[in-house]
């Protein structure tokens, strides 16, 4: 290799105010709102952008095939490179990784990544059921909920990820969401409320489930001196990786997510992380159901295997604890699936640059980001910090 690899930073972020249903904007208009805010945040215009990456959930969520082709007009991106990366719930992070590679590989200097979903427009569980192989299980699919609940059940038995522990995740994240102006679910609940809520696919109950949201997020990436010319306080990306595992791989048990562990090991090495629980000031983890946050504590090495229930009960992952997880409220505050992963990244950038407002973790300088999608078989991890590495 000749020369040093570039350091990539987030120089602008934007989010819509997420909502259960936005009837005033189209899918394209929704994405544009986030882009306008990100450009304003960076002090740039579309003329300054070399390349656009659109990330959104499966096209069947919104009945538009390759929706980036439609978004072009709303983004004012005619004659620019525009491509869509899609990877289920983790798609926003997969999109950001593609953007980083465009800059590192020399094909662009400044990349706009925009992620969105307008879930109010379709039938979510039915859409998600189309993930299943039409020959192998689709007729028994309950969206991804039956599957997710099933493996939580296995982790309850093997790792002690109890219903109460997951309920604590829901209580914590919903409380955090109260301070996030972009979140749309703002209701404090108790562990008892979660436990008493209606089972959908037990052990998943109504209050273990995030809202269905319309929302978009945009992030602008740049490198090195260029990043510093745009903003005094870039959020430097210390590492990012996105790994997968084959759906039908032999011996796939999903007690721990292997692609998550592989991605974390790679990113921690790049970012110089040896003791994640002590070294991170804040984390934004994508928890499509409460149970997943517990699983990620372990997969990301924030606690030993089987220690997640104890960790959430300790309060250390709540605001005021030593490693607040999801100060934004996470998916429990808003869950526009295609945007969710990029929101995690944007929130992490806001935290390390002191821009998180009412849900700022004081003095945060290094943040952990996790996202994923598919059959729990696509998993991404990122680390962002206030210091260039």
């Amino acid at each position, binding site marked *: 290799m000749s020369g040093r690899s570039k350091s990539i930073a987030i120089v602008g972020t934007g989010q819509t105010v997420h909502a259960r249903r936005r009837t005033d904007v189209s899918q394209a208009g929704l994405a544009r709102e986030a882009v306008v805010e990100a450009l304003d945040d960076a002090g740039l215009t579309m003329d300054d952008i070399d390349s656009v990456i659109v990330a959104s959930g499966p096209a069947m969520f919104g009945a538009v095939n390759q929706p980036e082709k439609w978004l072009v007009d709303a983004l004012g991106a005619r004659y620019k490179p525009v491509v869509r990366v899609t990877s289920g719930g983790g798609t926003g992070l997969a999109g950001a990784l593609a953007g980083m590679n465009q800059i590192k590989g020399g094909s662009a200097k400044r990349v706009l990544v925009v992620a969105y979903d307008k879930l109010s427009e379709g039938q979510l569980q039915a859409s998600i059921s189309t993930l299943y192989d039409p020959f192998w299980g689709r007729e028994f699919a309950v969206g991804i909920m039956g599957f997710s609940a099933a493996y939580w059940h296995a982790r309850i038995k093997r790792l002690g990820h109890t219903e109460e522990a997951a309920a604590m995740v829901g209580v914590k994240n919903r409380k955090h969401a109260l301070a996030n102006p972009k979140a749309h679910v703002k209701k404090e609940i108790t562990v008892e409320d979660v436990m008493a809520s209606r089972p959908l696919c037990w052990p998943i109950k109504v209050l273990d489930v995030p809202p269905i949201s319309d929302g978009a997020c945009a992030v602008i990436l740049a490198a090195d001196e260029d990043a510093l010319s745009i903003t005094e306080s870039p959020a430097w990306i210390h590492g990012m990786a996105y790994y997968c595992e084959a759906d039908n791989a032999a011996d796939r048990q999903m007690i721990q997510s292997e*692609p998550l562990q592989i991605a974390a090991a790679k990113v921690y090495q790049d970012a110089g992380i040896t003791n994640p629980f002590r070294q991170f000031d804040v984390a934004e983890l994508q928890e499509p159901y409460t149970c997943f946050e517990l699983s990620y504590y372990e997969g990301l090495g924030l606690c030993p295997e089987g220690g997640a229930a104890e960790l959430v009960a300790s309060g250390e992952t709540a605001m005021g604890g030593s490693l607040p997880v999801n100060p934004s409220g996470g998916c429990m505050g808003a869950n526009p699936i295609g945007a969710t992963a990029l929101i995690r990244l944007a929130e992490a950038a806001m935290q390390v640059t002191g821009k998180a407002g009412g849900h700022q973790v004081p003095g945060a300088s290094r943040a952990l980001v996790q996202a994923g999608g598919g059959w729990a078989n696509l998993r991404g991890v990122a680390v962002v910090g206030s210091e260039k590495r």
Partner: protein
Amino acid sequence: MMNTTTRRVAVVNSAQTVLSPAWPDRQHIDLISEAVAGALKGTGLRIEDVDFVIDSGSDFLDGRSISNCGFLGAMGAHHKEESRVEEDGLWSLSYAHDKIAGGSAKVGLVIAYSKPSESDVRNFWTGLLEPFLQRPVGLDQFSAAGLYAQRYLATAGLKADDLHAVSNRAWERAVANPYVDVAEVPGDAAFWNDPVSTPLRASDLARPADGAVAVLLASADVADQVSATPVWLTGLGSAIDQHFLAAREPDALPACAAATRSALRMAGLDDVRSFDLAEVSATSTVGELMVLEALGFAEAHRGLDAYVGATTINESGGALPADVIMATGLVRLHEAASRLAGRTGYETPGATSALVHGTGGFAMQNHCVVTMEVAS
């Protein structure tokens, strides 16, 4: 925008399945597996040596959401970095190039496939349209091609029959291409004469095909070890047009021209006529002419001239006899790389440089151009 710290990237091998109007007895994973195995074969590289996989496919065509999820094993992606680019495989290749050029990885596998025979392909095309104003009025892939053709022919002073030269040439070459499932140039009069969407006939419209293609990319240090003739990627560019068909240029493809400028700038070239080979994509005969003009192989409305120029165009037959939708551009790259490397069956003495073009979106809204060379 070529940066001095980026690394050179080469195609070290590539492979495709036969492209057929239908592979009724094989599944997506069977086609993908064959292409992946072919791309690794003979390189000395094993799947363990591959750092990452980038793939192109379509949920709408595959009839499943996040369709890459179910095909990861067949793609050899297990426990690797993987990404789905929902666009022609040439965009996946561009991503893979960037990942290696930027130093994040050394060996990448790029895969693209489609199996349009499993679906009503019109749904794929009309699904690309925003659903409020264009999708309800009957616009589809055929009528879009017809609207372009009417305006193009009028301005160029051509008749619909003049387009027979384009399709006949394409089908003759496809017949000679062992990887396109066609025994002879179609002979029935209806194919050549009956309008499908005036002024175009079936002979003017790309025939959907099932198939898969895989391309193995590597950084220079690896490529020089495993390949006697690495095919270097020298320029890459892409650009998209606006969405509404009627708002675009009536008989030209400025986004294709913009993509070409980007690729040539990176390659440090200013005239495409210096390329020995070109492999281009199109969804119709008129589309192919407009592509050749936008690329710079002919003046505006003189696309027919491109076939008698210095650059050999679409020796494979191009996209018209076999449009693998999400894979057509990457098939073009495989065809060109095979010729530059002089692989068995593709021997092309004297050819050292090639330009490859791919397209995506409704009525060719998006364009990608890649330039390549081998040591002469």
